[in-house]
């Protein structure tokens, strides 16, 4: 046998790729991302930058804008929390139980995705208006939903629900049943099994889903404007403020509010991702 040095050095064979080469696909990806996401966002920044800094502060610190920011953030947060709880419940029911009509129920969860948001808004308003089906039941109790921040929360809950269900559901379905059985044989009761074994395993998905629901709620416009009534300082959300400014041809001011919103969204996404990463470091679910 000859020694290794005597053998010709072969060129490393190129692995066959399914899609055309890295250069081409990456180029397209960047182009599309730029056209659709980056350039419009940059345009918002540029328009806003035309205004001097003093004007910026003036626009953002206006009581009406501040109130809108407060409502948008708090209502979105509330909606995300409600969805976290009930989305988890729905995902649980859908994966753990077999019942007639389960598939229909499963399909219904996606309805808020499919429905034009304006339709949802009109429907919710009709329901919750003081003379609507639900509104007239709530009115004697002194609870008014339509045209109040509560109405905003309900609309945002509606559109955010699928995010939590659809992120938690597959994780729950893939959860090894033996984990629960192991915990049982070790002496844990049902509550403890859920708290110490199932919930921690679902937490990353639950955070992701709630974060998605939150970001979606922050930018939601269509379904909210009908039910909110848009009373300045009370039930006006940030996207509406932007719309109003646009309608009054105050493009600069609109852009400033938009940029504020954008930065806020960025901050939120960053925080959520950081939390995810920290969780993942602790328990990488690898088998």
């Amino acid at each position, binding site marked *: 046998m000859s020694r290794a040095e005597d053998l010709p050095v072969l060129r490393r064979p190129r692995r066959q790729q399914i899609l055309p080469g890295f250069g081409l696909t990456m180029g397209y990806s960047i182009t599309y991302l730029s056209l659709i996401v980056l350039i419009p966002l940059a345009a918002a920044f540029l328009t806003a930058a035309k205004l001097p800094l003093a004007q910026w502060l003036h626009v953002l610190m206006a009581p009406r804008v501040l109130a809108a920011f407060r409502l948008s953030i708090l209502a979105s947060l509330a909606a995300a929390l409600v969805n976290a709880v009930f989305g988890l419940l729905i995902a649980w029911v859908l994966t753990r139980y077999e019942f007639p009509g389960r598939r229909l129920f499963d399909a219904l969860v996606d309805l808020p995705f499919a429905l034009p948001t304006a339709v949802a808004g009109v429907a919710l308003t009709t329901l919750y208006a003081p003379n609507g089906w639900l509104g007239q039941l709530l009115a004697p109790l002194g609870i008014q939903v339509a045209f109040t921040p509560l109405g905003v929360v309900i609309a945002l809950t509606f559109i955010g629900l699928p995010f939590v269900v659809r992120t938690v559901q597959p994780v729950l379905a893939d959860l090894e049943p033996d*984990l629960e*059985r192991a*915990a049982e*044989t*070790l*002496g844990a009761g049902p509550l403890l099994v859920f708290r110490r074994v199932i919930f921690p*395993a679902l937490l990353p998905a639950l955070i992701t889903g709630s974060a998605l629901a939150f970001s979606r709620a922050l930018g939601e416009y269509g379904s909210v404007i009908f039910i909110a009534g848009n009373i300045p300082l009370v039930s006006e959300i940030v996207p509406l403020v932007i719309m109003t400014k646009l309608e009054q041809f105050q493009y600069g001011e609109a852009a400033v509010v938009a940029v504020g919103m954008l930065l806020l969204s960025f901050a939120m996404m960053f925080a959520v991702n950081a939390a995810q990463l920290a969780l993942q470091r602790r*328990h990488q679910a690898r*088998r």
Partner: protein
Amino acid sequence: MSIRIEQLTKLYQGTPVVNDVTLEIHTGEFFVLLGPSGSGKSTLLRALAGLTHVDHGRLSLHGRDVTELPARLRGVGMVFQHYALFRHMTVAENIEFALRVRRMRAADRRRRRQELLQLVALEGYDERYPSQLSGGQQQRVAVARALAHEPAVLLLDEPFGALDARIRVELRDTVRAVQRRLGMTTILVTHDQEEAFSLADRIGIMQMGRLLETGTPENLYRYPATRFVARFLGAANLFLGELSPDGLRLGSAMLPQPSAAPAAAAGTEAVLVVRPEDIEIRAAGAAAPEQAFARGTVRELTFAGHQQHVQVELAQPCEVHAATSVEREGDRTVSVDALRSAAEQAALPLGVGSSVTLGVRRLHALPTPISSFRLVAADAAQADALEANPLLAQLVRSMQARILSRVAGDAGSERLDAGICVLPLAPASAAAISEAIARGARRILCLPALPALPSRMLVHAPDPRRRAPLLALVSSVMRHLPVEATAVSLQSATASRGEVVETQRAMLDTSADLRHAHGLDLRSERFVGGMREWLASLSAQAEPALVVLGLDAAQPALDEALRGELGPLFHPDTRTAVLLAVDPAP
């Protein structure tokens, strides 16, 4: 007695997946449940752990009835195939889980954890997460976790199944060592025969929900009771032989009786087990081996490390019959598997095509009363229909038995005194049955024209003198069908008190005898009316059943019974299959 399982039955959609299992496991014993996948072994283990509900029976741990107790209160430790470690907890948190649940103080927890980690040789891994460990290490953690709360028994569900071969052997040794050191009563479930042999004090073999046999590895290997166990535990050649008081006939050779052979009348067909290492091979020209039984030609030689695997095809015409199903009927070639040690290989080099004489060093006769099936049909089409019957197909498959011959038309003058004779059930069957009995048939299975697998088995055995052979037949069938069996007593509506007591006693005796002799349980049922009414009521039911009856071999009584009280059996629309045991009254 550490673990006692009594008559445990678990149904899944009406079919028993664990069927009437009774088993006792001693304190400190390492018991292995061995069986193919789907045999119910894991379900049995989970029932013991309290992770699955059972439909019937009782479970006791250390004398405490735990049948209704939830898993968390049973005090068992369980290890799963895919480890089932909590991924968001460190090794330490995993091991301490059971202790935290029991609110043990942190210092005590830490001490116990150190002990356990030392036991499984994982000291210093406390703060790792499961994802940072190899499969073998993860399973060690799972073992430590299962032992943390000092359980009464340790249950291992295919714990090495997900590991590669080398780690598997290493972890197996660890588990055995830990079990020995703690004297922990342990049950391990596996489908790996080698694993069972290397770990078990005792093995229980399961098939189709039934616990077929239990015993030490050596006893099960040397003296299996069923074809299934003989072939599941290592390779085996199964032949049909003939037992008689003078010895044992295998092909043309007469061999001495094996010591453990069942007592038998002359001409009784038996299934013989010969392990490949017990086959002696000599060159055709040389002196024949001491217990020679056949000649043949070497067909295949396979290198297996220190041993050589030899496949020999027996020379035609061949008087040795295989006891297990053959690929093609009419294909009369019989091949024999043999293993040769290095010394034997050196003494006689073999090549493919060498002519050899085969001898047997040791053999074992199975105590099964069902050695083979013989179909008796009017023509080939009817024989095909019989062969396709789901009940027969199921029996042949699960017993790994063989349909030895098909007797069609009037040409059949062959004697039918060996094995089970299979007949179609039709209005004219009474005559066919008496003819078969006249030709020597003693065990007759009659199959109805409507093909259905019976969902229950009904045994009527009022005569104590003929009960023993009948129950041997019943137990053999019961072990190979996924059905529940019931002892039926018949009692006339006008019976006196004394007669009622008598029939009740006969029924209870039947159950007790089967329990005692074969370790199986019968349900019991009383029918008010005579044999004729009972059989008529069965024929009217949509639920297919298998009826087992004992008949008196004396000719006039037999004919009278066939024409009289057994009449409803031959109804054309019946779904009831019948197994008749014809024995002379002693």
